[in-house]
């Protein structure tokens, strides 16, 4: 897998972020505060919730997409910590839907092409992705195969002449119903399973490809799609990574899981901290101080947010050092996900009646965070993974 790009291990100090990251953080935060935050309520209140597609190009201009990609391909040069800054500031932005859509484009669709694609594939799809000219997505999950990736049923069969014929269904695909380019996992052997999976690039205009949008509890501005492939004919150059990666799709997916989960843990802890702070602000504004019962509850949550944040940064540090971080990443993902829900739930309650009738941001915080313990591997699966690394 000579052309596959793996993140290089870094020699880092204990402190991860550098002054350049602080600068970037300020810039991204300013962009989020101007371009996302003021509009989210309105975007979500529409009959068909969503944000303008032009936001991808705006985000690209603001420099959000390119931190895992070489400048030659439209990126900013590889700096994973800069990418973390973007993840955190999007999480702080208060819209899980927008963060998910931009994230699925930058961390999944286009990043898969960058990481696993041939140079030709990179040249074709990565620069327009980096510029936000096209929207990308990754399609793995199927109606009958969620966390259990190996059991997907979508199949690609090589035709005489070298084309592939793709058939199957995908679901819960972020950006799926409006992406231009999609990386799709399919079985390519009779046996299927771990050793017979391959990634393909599908264009939205490929005949036989259709999609519909799925209405979801949260992440309401993201275009979550159900995808159908009915005899979609793909030329040989759509095999991601070329012949070298034939049947290697499962490995590719697993390789990228750690980063996805670190991102979710980073986002979850940042969101939890922000929501908790806003809850404190609300109570102090209303009562001059945190009232008694809430003092205990919020103190407990504050202590927990600190601990889970420390765990998340620890997992990130191990990962960036190039160490095996599966255990710590899975722990952080599990804990941060549930905690983000717990905190949002408590702060919704702290609002009282106005919270559930007239305060979109905290409702959105709770609805959006509720995906965290489900997406990217459920909490139950995370504990399975942790247990395995512990020899249990």
């Amino acid at each position, binding site marked *: 897998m000579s052309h596959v790009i793996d993140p290089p291990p870094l020699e880092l100090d204990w402190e991860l972020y550098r002054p350049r990251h602080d600068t970037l953080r300020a810039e991204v935060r300013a962009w989020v505060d101007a371009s996302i935050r003021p509009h989210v309520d309105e975007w979500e*209140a529409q009959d068909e919730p969503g944000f303008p597609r032009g936001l991808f190009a705006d985000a690209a201009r603001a420099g959000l997409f390119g931190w895992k990609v070489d400048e030659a391909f439209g990126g900013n040069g590889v700096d994973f910590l800069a990418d973390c800054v973007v993840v955190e500031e999007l999480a702080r932005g208060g819209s899980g839907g927008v963060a998910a859509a931009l994230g699925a484009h930058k961390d999944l669709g286009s990043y898969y092409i960058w990481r696993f694609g041939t140079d030709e594939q990179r040249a074709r799809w990565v620069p327009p992705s980096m510029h936000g000219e096209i929207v990308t997505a990754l399609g793995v*999950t199927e109606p*009958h195969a*969620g*966390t*259990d990736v190996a*059991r997907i049923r979508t199949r690609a069969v090589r035709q005489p002449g070298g084309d592939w014929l793709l058939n199957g269904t995908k*679901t*819960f695909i972020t950006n799926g119903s409006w992406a231009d380019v999609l990386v799709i996992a399919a079985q390519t052997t009779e046996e299927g399973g771990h050793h017979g999976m391959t990634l393909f690039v599908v264009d939205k205009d490929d005949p036989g490809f259709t999609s519909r949008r*799925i*209405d*979801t*509890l*949260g992440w309401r501005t993201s275009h979550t799609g159900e995808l159908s492939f009915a005899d979609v004919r793909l030329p040989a150059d759509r095999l991601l990574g070329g012949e070298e990666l034939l049947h290697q799709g499962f490995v590719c997916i697993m390789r990228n899981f750690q980063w996805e989960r670190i991102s979710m843990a980073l986002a979850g802890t940042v969101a939890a901290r922000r929501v908790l702070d806003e809850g404190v602000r609300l109570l102090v504004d209303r009562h001059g101080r945190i*009232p008694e*019962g809430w003092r205990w509850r919020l103190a407990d949550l504050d202590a927990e947010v600190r601990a889970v944040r420390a765990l998340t940064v620890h997992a990130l540090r191990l990962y960036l050092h190039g160490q095996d971080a599966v255990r710590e990443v899975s722990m952080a993902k599990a804990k941060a996900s549930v905690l983000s*829900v717990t905190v949002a*739930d408590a702060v*919704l*309650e702290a*609002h*009282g*009646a*106005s*919270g*559930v*009738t*007239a*305060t*979109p941001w905290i*409702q959105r915080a*709770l609805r959006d965070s*509720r*995906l965290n*313990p*489900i*997406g990217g591997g*459920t*909490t*139950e699966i995370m*504990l399975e993974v942790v247990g395995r690394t512990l020899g249990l």
Partner: protein
Amino acid sequence: MGFPAAAPATLPRMSTSLFTEEHEALRAVVRRWVEREGAEGAPAWERTGGWPRDVLRTVASQGWLSTALAASGGGDVLAGVAMWEELGRLRSAGVVQDLLAQAHAAALLSEAGVPAVAQRAHAGELLVTLAGGALRLRPDGDALLLSGTAPALANAAVADTAVAVVPDEQGIALAVVDTRLPGWHATPPASPFGRRGGHAADVEFRDVRLAGGDVVARGAEGLALMRRRQDRWRLDHAAATVAAAWLAWEDAKAYALQREAFGRPIATFQVNRHALADMAAELSALRALVHDTARRLTLAALESGDTAALRLRADRVSAAVADRCLQLHGGYGYTMEFDVQRAWRDAAHLRVDEAGDAALRDEIAAGLESRMGGGSS
């Protein structure tokens, strides 16, 4: 698209002796109606401007609302519990909370000695909201002016009549208000988290002019009426809320028995099996407490803190159960196409709604203090 429940949609029988055959017959009738309306109808009301008026007429025409009356007025605590255990399965806290308010507001009107209005409310001809909040009445010549705000009132968006609950010197005054009067302003919630099929609204009274006869109870009498009503209402609320949580549990169990991961039904994973068993234990305990409280209510043996504790736990456990059921659904739990998302939103909404856990907890703590012969209240 609701996921079809595999098990028959019935609550388990809790005992052979608390409910009579008449109660069980009522339960069966309500259940049949709910199965017709609930499976398809109620969820759709979230998208069609709220539950339609003929629902009220149907419920009223069966005499179901009258179960909320005092026994002396022909009501029946246990019939009410049996009925709300079935109505709670309507898959829409919006309509359930509105119907609960209607039943108890109508009963309050009966007890306050306004038979004509009460009768029309019981018959479903008048939609009534009970308006508790920061209200006051002040004289203006022969008339009275009602002013103030009351948040998140069931039925208020389309109510014909309001019963305003106004603190007075010795207790509480109850005033009947025609919502066509000038000064009545009802604002539906801008962003309802749950209860989406209902007609709740924030209400402002801007000097609504009432006649002296519109005040139907005062002082200690009004307070006593409200207290008794609150106990009944909380009981019925708990019966309905626990039933809704049971329904979410039944759905989750059915889903977990058919959904496979790693080659076997997810219900067979021990963590899920224990989660379902634990939820069943929690809900069984709550239902036993509902029945126990009902029994003691019929015997006039309730003590301070009893219904507060019931409501607190009903709301909290129901919310926790709905959350765990959503998790059991995995990605599908997050789509608007499954019922569990609504159960989750409704339960979270009720938990932080009008009652407010802080107030309930304080009431319970005061009850504990008084049992121990001390305390502040």
